[in-house]
């Protein structure tokens, strides 16, 4: 029996894959997955389809909860890691429990980003990151006809598609910050806008929010520079930021995400970061990169687990199409389908 005690923080695509890979490779290892969310791992990239009613909830799940038990992976749901002690090799949970590890994979994922300038309006905006969020979208969509989309991340275009299929009126705000953290030139922005327009979306170019208020139980009003828009839902799609605040002061190097080397090592022996919370310098794009997308997350999850077990697997470079269009590094697939 190995004395290894592996802890995986997060049960998204990367965390789930990491835990399963660890168990496959070392069947008698003690593997614990700690997730703040309840329930089994699901595929977040399918949430827009779930919102559109194209797939049932059951199709979102990667595997039933029982399968963790069958594979002898301890799944602790509804528990939040609040700090990491590298010296003691332990994590603290918000209910004051300390969990020790010999190897750690942090797959805490990302959380919806709300620009600080819009912080005060955050209660009026809906994000779409979790299954709970998706259920709220479905419920609200059943009572409204129009949606104002703000931001321009991966999910926003998929949700816009879903809304059009549901015959909803869609307003879409596009500006140079739309593809945050990447900046967009005017031509790229106009092309994205044009494609949305052709599909029947009302595009609001280069507008800034002056105020936002709920005017009735069914509608919010957004005052922009130049005009105002009333919509049943205001969707906030400003990208994800790695959910790593709990690691502040732990000794790991934190920038937007956890800075890792090409093997996903976080700078401490036996501690790896993977998925949407890992930040890596990418020589091909000559810049730092935080992975996005389901497939990347699964690949990174597997890579981190293999490296924790002593292998030396380098992170695969993401496809070029994710980064380059007319010299601007954005994921063209977000809007090319329009």
């Amino acid at each position, binding site marked *: 029996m190995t004395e290894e005690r592996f802890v995986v923080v997060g049960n998204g695509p990367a965390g789930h894959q990491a835990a399963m890979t660890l168990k496959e490779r070392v069947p008698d290892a003690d593997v614990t997955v700690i997730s703040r969310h309840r329930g089994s791992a699901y595929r977040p990239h399918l949430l827009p389809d779930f919102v559109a009613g194209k797939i049932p909830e059951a199709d979102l799940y990667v595997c039933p909860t029982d399968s963790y038990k069958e594979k002898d992976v301890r799944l602790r749901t509804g528990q939040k890691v*609040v*700090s990491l*002690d590298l010296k003691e090799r332990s994590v*603290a949970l918000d209910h*004051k429990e*300390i969990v020790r590890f010999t190897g750690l994979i942090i797959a805490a994922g990302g959380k919806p980003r709300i*620009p*600080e*300038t819009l*912080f*005060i309006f955050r209660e009026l905006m809906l994000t779409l990151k979790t299954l709970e969020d998706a259920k709220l979208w479905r419920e609200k969509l059943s009572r409204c006809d129009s949606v104002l989309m703000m931001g321009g991340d991966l999910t926003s275009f998929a949700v816009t598609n879903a809304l059009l299929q549901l015959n909803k009126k869609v307003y879409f705000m596009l500006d140079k910050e739309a593809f945050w953290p990447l900046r967009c030139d005017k031509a790229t922005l106009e092309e994205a806008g044009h494609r949305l327009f052709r599909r029947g979306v009302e595009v609001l170019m280069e507008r800034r929010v*002056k*105020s936002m208020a709920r005017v009735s139980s069914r509608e919010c009003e957004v005052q922009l520079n130049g005009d105002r828009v009333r919509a049943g839902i205001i969707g906030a799609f400003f990208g994800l930021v790695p959910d790593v605040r709990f690691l*502040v002061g732990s000794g790991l*190097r*934190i*920038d*937007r995400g956890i*800075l890792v080397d090409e093997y996903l090592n976080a700078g401490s022996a036996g501690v790896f970061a993977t998925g949407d919370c890992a930040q890596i*310098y990418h*020589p091909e794009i*000559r*810049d*730092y990169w935080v992975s996005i997308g389901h497939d990347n997350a699964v690949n990174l999850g597997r890579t981190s687990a293999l490296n924790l077990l002593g292998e030396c697997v380098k992170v695969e470079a993401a496809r070029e199409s994710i980064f380059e269009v007319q010299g601007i590094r954005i994921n063209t697939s977000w809007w090319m389908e329009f």
Partner: protein
Amino acid sequence: MAKTIKYSTDPEDFYYMGVNVPCQAACPASTNIPAYIRALYEEGYDLSYEINRLANILPGVLGRICSRPCEDRCRHGEAELGHPVNICHIKRAAADLKQGLSRPEASPWTPLGKKVAVVGSGPAGLAAGYDLSTIGFDVTIFEALDEAGGMLRYGIPEFRLPRSVLNEEIDRILTGGADLRTGVRVGKDAAVEELLRDFDAVLLAAGCYKSIPLGVPGESLPGVHPGLEFMMSVCSNRPPAIGDRVLVIGAGFTAFDCARSAVRLGAGDVAICLRRTEEDLRVTKDEVLETKKEGINILSLMLSRRVLGSTRVEGVEFVRTSPGEVSPDGKRTIAAIEGSEFVLPADSVIVAAGQRPEPIEAGALKDAQGLAAADRDSFRTSLKGLYVAGDYLTGPSTVIESVGMGRRAAERIARDLTGKAFREKAVRMEEAEITDRKRTWDYLPREEMPAVQPVQERFRRLNVEVETGLTPERAKEESKRCYLCYLHYEIDVSRCIYCRYCIDVAPRDCIKLVKEVLTNEVGAVTGFVETTRWREVNAVVIDNSRCIRCGECMRVCPVNCISVTRVELTERPAEEGLSHD
């Protein structure tokens, strides 16, 4: 029955305070934080303010701009306990809610007939001048600029520090008796040698007024502004034209002040460029959040290589950096990633990469920078009667560090000139009742500082104070969160019946079964050898370095063998200084 009060100057007790009241130990001015928080909880705003002022002379100022080393050490911020108490803003609440400034008390010291010149009226100079004047020295403070305050007035924008607050506290300091002479630049208008002839001692506390350049090509192009000069022009209502796109290069408070000022001057696209990460910033989290709310981007892991432009600045070429380990000076090392060059366009570039002192010719031995070299403990230079303190001695530091250093320098000067100590630190011990803290208070969320919203309202004028202050209700709520670490809990082993009820209710491993108590050379407790074997247990002890003063152990103790003592690191007039010939 009167409570027993004792004072101790035993090193063992100082050691205890250092370990067990971490907030006060972290404060460079040794502010009695638990006491002023408790006073505010009891709605004694004036008392709370005065407890502060005894140590740090500028509570209203520091309640707004302190770097808050105390909060980093607050026990409430330990891993499983939540977030630190909002100590700084409780301090501000006391300043906001006080009824008025107290009248200066009659000094217990008589005039000494000795004169001290203080060069510079920043926090270090003001603190030293105040302490020296209140113990009987004839003090003159020389200020090169038009008004007193140094960096507080000329380096910190009004939207963070209203001048009415600064003026009120400087006026209060000057009522201590120091004479202020503004518009006198020592080294130019008056020589140090001259002052040394006219005064018994001279303290150079002239601050850091020279911006450090990046040292990259193109830095002299029009449109590149040294950060400190930019801030001084803003604070003097003579800001330069900066255009729409502004890059601020730097990571300290000055960089943030420059960026936020640039937005107020009309720039639409402002970014702060960091060599390291946001995580490595030493500015407070509140400052970072408010800066972002104002639409300023914080860009990390980038090193400027050259400023671009033909007749004026057009942009900056950067290269990505890779962060390494934290070096002994507390800064993280970085390495440039070659081949990662990129350019950001800009109409103006503000370089806030640090400041250093401008040398004043003093006739003393000089250090490598051409400044009068001084010992950092004694503040003495090679010239008898010449001392150096504050940022002029150490390079840029924080306001609270400067205040603390100014006070220590004053004590040293007083000793050197008279051969006597005037103030001494002592640990005050007083029997206390069980705290009335409720266990539920441990779970109260931290009360954050409210700020002007919507953000556009902040930009109406350059001097709209952004942080609006805690209401009395919210300040009191926050004060409940303090664990009151100045309460010392102790089990009387002779009366303990080893029932272990206290251990059962302890919220963390703060009560221990021990077989041995470890002490250091001064007799202070440094640790415990715990045991799980009952036959080895020699005592049940409370580890005050882990205790969160919830009081649960006292409440369940069936034999009342747990006592509480209120222990405070205080300052009192030294006996020798009180007795004059």
